[in-house]
């Protein structure tokens, strides 16, 4: 732990609040079949083959719906026709007929654990399914950006502090140099919002799985430390910037009459940060988390302009009510210049 983080109690909780979850997605295709985007006629056969293989290896596996956490694993909502399997043995979701025939997604608190879980299921599936592979370019995927290991491994981070002090740009450049990438998390089709990022490997070919996993973990650790420092800087050196962002967001959440899902995510972001730092009364960090992760799922933006006002209005009403009693606490007021 760095000395600056030990200085203040509130810094200790930063780390787990910044780090939302880690994931590992292994993409595979079955030889002899066209990719799902090209041909949906074999989707049933492929889903059945994946289901059977899982049944033999993971007895509790069952077809189901991907929950909130699983959604963060797909860079976009899974295409129509995707079959999802969940299981009790491993924190893993298997999606059949997404972009590729098979995507094995592990979710855990570190990239290492997420990869180990996904790898176990991938190997189990490999006993029964013949994966398309060439010695020169590895596992063959529908997208050239997944070929080779077929592995995307990363961590979902809430980088509100860095975004607020305008230091995301240098961080993204730093990630570039590590062959890592910061992707905006796509929640219910909303991009570039909420300052929640997937920190994920940009390269899948030419480096082995362990190298990718280790680097992904290093990148996440480095960003967590930078975000922690950014939050400390906000509190200690830029209290007006910090309190303005939080108080302004609270004011809008209390009084806006129309709220789009995208705007809501942007407003919840500083509130989640303040809650996790223990600066709010009327909302705990866990409650902020739950709102953050679940809201956009049940309330995506309405594409039809005529109906949009009605949806946004209803959403605003709900949020007004929820935030009516959320106020900065005394610690926060002491902080204000």
């Amino acid at each position, binding site marked *: 732990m760095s000395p600056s983080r030990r200085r203040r109690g509130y810094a200790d909780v930063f780390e787990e609040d910044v780090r939302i979850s880690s994931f590992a997605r292994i993409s595979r295709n079955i030889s002899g079949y066209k990719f799902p985007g090209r041909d949906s006629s074999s989707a049933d056969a492929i889903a059945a083959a994946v289901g059977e293989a899982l049944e033999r290896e993971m007895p509790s596996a069952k077809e189901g719906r991907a929950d909130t956490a699983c959604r963060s694993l797909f860079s976009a909502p899974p295409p129509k026709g995707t079959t999802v399997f969940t299981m009790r043995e491993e924190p893993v979701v298997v999606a059949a007929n997404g972009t590729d025939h098979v995507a094995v997604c592990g979710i855990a608190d570190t990239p290492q654990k997420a990869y180990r879980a996904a790898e176990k299921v991938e190997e189990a599936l490999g006993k029964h399914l*013949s994966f398309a592979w060439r010695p020169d370019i590895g596992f063959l995927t529908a997208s050239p950006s997944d070929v080779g290991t077929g592995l995307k491994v990363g961590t979902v981070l809430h980088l509100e502090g860095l975004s607020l002090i305008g230091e995301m740009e240098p961080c993204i450049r730093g990630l570039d140099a590590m062959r890592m990438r910061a992707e905006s998390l796509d929640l219910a089709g909303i991009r570039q919002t909420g300052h929640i990022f997937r920190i994920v490997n940009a390269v899948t070919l030419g480096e082995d799985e362990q190298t990718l996993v280790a680097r992904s973990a290093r990148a996440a650790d480095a960003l967590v430390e930078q975000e922690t420092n950014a939050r400390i800087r906000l509190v200690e050196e830029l209290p007006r910037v910090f309190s303005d962002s939080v108080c302004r967001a609270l004011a809008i959440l209390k009084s806006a009459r129309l709220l789009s899902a995208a705007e809501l995510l942007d407003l919840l972001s500083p509130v989640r940060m303040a809650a996790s730092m223990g600066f709010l009364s009327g909302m705990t960090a866990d409650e902020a988390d739950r709102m953050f992760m679940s809201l956009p799922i049940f309330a995506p933006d309405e594409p039809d302009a005529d109906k949009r006002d009605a949806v946004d209005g209803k959403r605003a009403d709900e949020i007004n009510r929820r935030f009516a009693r959320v106020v900065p606490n005394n610690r926060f007021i002491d902080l204000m210049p």
Partner: protein
Amino acid sequence: MIYYQPMKCEICHKNDAETVFRREEDGKTHELYVCRECAARESRPRPQAQRGARARGKSGSRPDVSVTISGSGNPPPFIEALLSATADLVNHIAEEEDCDLTCRKCGTKWSEVEEKGLLGCPGCWGAFAKKLGPRLQAEQRRVAHTGKSPSGASQSRKHIERQLQDAIRKEDYKEAAKLRDMLNALDAPKEEGGK
């Protein structure tokens, strides 16, 4: 021709290919990439075996084959056998550059790949190698896979490779060509486990 690099020798599958044997036939070019060792071994004069191979091969059916080996000369018999056996496979990736490339296995056109960013089938990786190679070179770490290979299939590939070595040693080129086809057909690894 840009291929995924480094390309492995298509005979021993171990060393990097350094030489290409080319044969022009019906206006199409068939290519076989081999390493220096295999090229030297297969080019060594072997009068008896050579005659035997020609007799067994289908050389009578195409008398007017012009041949290039690294510039000039005749391909050694083993190479010739492999070339004819793999002609289709090589054709697959050697289409003309001007027209829109199409994957023969799934019908996907290169223009569609560019539009959607997605390939149509595992075979597209061979069909569009020329187009994908530079892209991988620019975007990926290295255009050479390191890491895992499929767990189940590795054994069978090793097995076939050993048989191929045996066939080469016995100078049974017909068998070698058949085994080579099997290796090509396998979407399988040459190393075990890969971990």
